[in-house]
């Protein structure tokens, strides 16, 4: 650290001083520095591994274009399906009870709400295995 600051700040004038710093290091310091270096390099390797892991998870669902298209199709299908199901239920109930368009309108609204619920669930992500 001290070496870095010295060489970074006033490199030309203090080159000798930096050299003296390094010379003054005790064997303990050198061992500590070596240990720190290996630790940081291992940490770097670990982080790189974690990074590639994340990448592979992202690659699992394809490149960005395919992923985005897939998500778009899913949102569309979920929403349209819910609205369609709500409308169908309302229509059929109207036909059975002869209640005019009232139930159709009510179930159309409910179906739209269900569509938004579906999209919310999609955006919130799968909850994974529940306990209990």
């Amino acid at each position, binding site marked *: 650290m001290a070496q870095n600051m010295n060489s970074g700040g006033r490199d030309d004038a203090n080159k000798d001083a930096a050299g003296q710093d390094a010379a003054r290091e005790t064997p303990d310091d050198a061992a500590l520095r070596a240990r720190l270096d290996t630790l940081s390099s291992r940490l770097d390797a670990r982080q790189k591994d974690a990074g590639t892991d994340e990448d592979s998870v992202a690659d*699992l*669902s*394809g*490149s960005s*274009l*395919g992923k985005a*298209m*897939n998500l778009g*199709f*899913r949102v569309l*299908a*979920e929403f*349209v*399906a*819910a609205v*369609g*199901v*709500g409308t169908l*239920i309302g229509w059929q109930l109207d036909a059975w009870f002869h209640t005019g368009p009232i139930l159709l309108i009510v*179930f159309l609204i*409910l*179906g739209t*709400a*269900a*569509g938004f*619920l*579906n999209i919310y669930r999609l955006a919130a992500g*799968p909850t*994974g*295995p*529940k*306990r*209990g």
Partner: protein
Amino acid sequence: MAEESGMDPIHQFAVEPIVNLHLFGINASFTNSALFMVAIVAIVTIFMLVGTSRRSLVPSRWQSMAEMSYEFVADTVQLSAGKAGMRFFPFIFSLFMFVLLANLIGLVPYTFSVTSQIVVTAALAILVISMVLVYGFFKHGFHFLKLFVPSGVSPFLVPFLVLIEVISFASRPISLSVRLFANILAGHITLKVMGGFVAALLGAGAFAILAPLPWIATVLFFALELLVGVLQAYVFAILSCVYLNDAIHPGH
């Protein structure tokens, strides 16, 4: 009309009987669709049998492919349905391999893509949802209905929310089947139309210079369709797991 049939983008989806069969007034003909379904099942079976026949410690190519597909689906099932979901692993694995093979084989020219028929995808989705219902009621009895009652809501809102949840549940098989069917259908029509552009431009005199453009687009779309085919099989499998998870652990 006869020379146009090669350019007709819908013609590829026609179901034609190979062996005519009428049982008790039901048209049970063996069609090209049925032929490809049998072929897919046969290919998956042979693939898994060959892959697991040797069982060496250092896997051969076939064995490692079979193991990779096994581990991929097993990870998917455990991630979204937990350890208890592993009892559905044979079902999900069959489903995934069938849809994957159907999507991939359908991309080979002159073949028939089974998953572009909504009858097939709807049958698969109904199978999944009826499994959810049967297993849910079998395992939890009427407690399974708690799936439709969100907890911690004021009593005035519960009837509306139950209706919304029921509609949301009823829309699942539809969105599951329509998504797969629409993706494959749209992709195949796009490929066919782009291919038709190439042929039409080549026959249009000086405009033949432009013919490579749709040809490049066809190649790019083909790569995209490969991706979409694999992705849709994966999505179908993972959504089946998510729905089965509801049957294993009902209630929010």
